């Protein structure tokens, strides 16, 4: 006849045991707490930083899908206007009507010699449809002096770095020279309408934004563009939009089209697209480290409580019950540490998410290709997930001391 199953209040016992040595419990919990806080903040920071990089690249370089004439990218060092998209403006209008497309923007990107106040240097000429670009390139947000150029007028928004080097300010004139679509020399004399700061050194030291029509006139590109950037209504649907754009441009660009999604356009973009898997390894290692602390402190606890486990075994407590008790004790401590850590991590993430972390000083030195202010992005999933993972990691780590406690022989344990 089997003995009836006893109801052991494991969780309550685990909770009570956790209080028996506050210092040890605090030490164990603090390891989980630090790990949980690091996971919440770290994930929020990485999400914010990667989002910043992706957003910057999407807006300024790649779109979600970018259309260029075949061969333009291979000659990106010279940005040759003769490899432009004839009728690029009309093409952009058609692409904007595709399902799932939020916007399609014709842009001109070319090298220019910029002459002003007696000095000259190389610059990056950007011909933009300033009305369409308000939510994408966001020139308004970069404005630090003056105003935006007006379409139809020979005016430029000039990066403050290149403006400083040329010795020009708002109201001054600049002369731009560049190679036209016929590969001859084109020029444009513009008034500096405003100064811009993107926070990205390489842009601020080179960019000259002029209305699209002015860049077209300078480079003999009437109605044309050197690229069309397509933005999906939902960034996660970029692959669907890619297929639609590929279909839509087929046969429309002489010499062939190069249509690429953002993650196909650079090593960095490919790296970003695979960043989740890489970061999962980092978070896993962090939890493993906290688990090792839990193993250590709980082993100490088990050693100290050898007589107690011997007594419990002598009173008929099964080995499985001992394992469960110790594991749940670890899980309770893990949950405590995880909750406090998640709260701390959340507070830090939310605070810095509102103020931003400004890396301007470093970005100037390192010429980072993204906005220098990173806004960590907090999510419920990170906070609750780190509590759950902390609980799980501590519980799993407690298996090692639990098995040791379960192997104790009652008589031997009572003699110690």
């Amino acid at each position, binding site marked *: 006849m089997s003995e009836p199953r006893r109801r052991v209040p494991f969780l309550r016992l685990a909770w009570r045991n956790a209080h028996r040595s506050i210092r040890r419990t605090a030490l164990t919990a603090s390891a989980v707490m630090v790990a949980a806080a690091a996971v919440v903040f770290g994930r929020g920071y990485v999400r914010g930083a990667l989002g910043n990089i992706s957003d910057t690249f999407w807006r300024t370089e790649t779109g979600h899908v970018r259309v260029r004439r075949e061969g333009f990218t291979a000659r990106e060092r010279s940005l040759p206007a003769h490899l432009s998209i004839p009728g690029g403006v009309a093409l952009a209008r058609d692409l904007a009507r595709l399902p799932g497309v939020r916007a399609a923007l014709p842009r001109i990107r070319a090298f220019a010699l910029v*002459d002003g106040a007696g000095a000259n240097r*190389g610059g990056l000429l950007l011909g933009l449809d300033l009305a369409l670009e308000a939510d994408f390139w966001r020139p308004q947000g970069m404005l630090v002096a003056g105003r935006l150029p007006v379409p139809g007028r020979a005016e430029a928004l000039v990066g403050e770095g290149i403006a400083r080097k040329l010795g020009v300010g708002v109201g001054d004139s600049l002369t731009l020279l560049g190679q036209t679509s016929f590969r001859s020399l084109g020029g444009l004399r513009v008034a500096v309408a405003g100064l811009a700061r993107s926070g990205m050194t390489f842009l601020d030291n080179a960019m000259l934004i002029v209305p699209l029509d002015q860049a077209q006139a300078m480079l003999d590109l009437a109605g044309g563009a050197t690229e069309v950037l397509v933005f999906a209504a939902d960034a996660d649907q970029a692959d669907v939009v890619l297929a639609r754009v590929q279909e839509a441009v087929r046969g429309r660009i002489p010499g062939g089209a190069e249509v690429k999604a953002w993650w196909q356009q650079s090593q960095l973009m490919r790296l970003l697209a695979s960043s989740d898997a890489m970061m999962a390894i980092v978070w896993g290692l962090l939890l493993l480290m906290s688990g090792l602390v839990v193993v250590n402190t709980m082993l100490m606890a088990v050693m100290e409580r050898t007589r107690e486990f011997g007594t419990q075994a002598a009173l008929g407590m099964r080995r499985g019950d001992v394992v469960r008790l110790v594991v749940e004790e670890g899980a309770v401590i893990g949950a405590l540490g995880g909750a406090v850590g998640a709260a701390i991590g959340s507070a830090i993430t939310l605070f810095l998410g509102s103020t931003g972390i400004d890396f301007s000083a470093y970005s100037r030195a390192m010429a980072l290709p993204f906005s220098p202010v990173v806004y960590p992005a907090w999510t419920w999933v990170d906070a609750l997930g780190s509590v759950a993972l902390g609980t799980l990691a501590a519980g799993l780590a407690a298996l090692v001391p639990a098995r040791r406690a379960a192997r104790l022989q009652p008589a031997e344990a009572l003699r110690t």
Partner: protein
Amino acid sequence: MTVIRTAAGVVAVVAALSWVGPSAAQVTAREVLERLDANMTIRTARSRAELVVHYRDGDDRTMTFESWDRGTDQSFLEFTAPERDAGSRFLRLGDAMWIFLPRVGKSVRIQGHMLRQGFMGSDFSYGDASENPSMAADYDAVIERRDTVEGRQVMVLALTARRPNLSYPRRRVWVDVERWVPLREERFAASGRLLKTAAFSDVRRLADRWYPFRIELDDALQTETTTTLRVLELRLGVSLPADIFTLRHLEGGR
């Protein structure tokens, strides 16, 4: 400066004494350079030339221009065709160069980064066109060997710059030892990397000089193109307007 030198920036250009001087066997490398330099000192010249840029995809772009030169330091050049390039002008005074485009309406001095850009999209750079080194004063030379090019006896000289900031710290020139005209040239960076190769042909006698009327240049760093400069007409000893080599003239036209 001749049109050849103006547009091409050909340093080893050209011209040699019509009289046969000391025999080639007796000439030192330095004397060869001095002869080339001596031939560059043309009092005045007026010329018309064609610049053809050949693209790898099979296209050619042809531009024509006229040039006025005084000595080696003053040059004025104006494109006459095609229509979209007509009126583009260049003024060179010593090592300084200015460009004027009609639709910009203002002259711009070409310096820094722009000097390395292709002159009107050709393989000649603006630096080639503006730099005017004295071969004997700016380069040390050694005779590497004797050779033949297109059936003509040549002396191959290796040149090393004697002052910094020259576009080409090292050169190798194949000099026709009968007409004292360069027939081939290689231009190198300080690292020894080949930057440009030039071939000179259609050598004609003009008064007491020999000139190559055709130069083919290949910029090794610009793989899409090669360029041919063909002199259509060259007149020496012409009288020039007094103010032709001025910024005012550059911006105001002839």
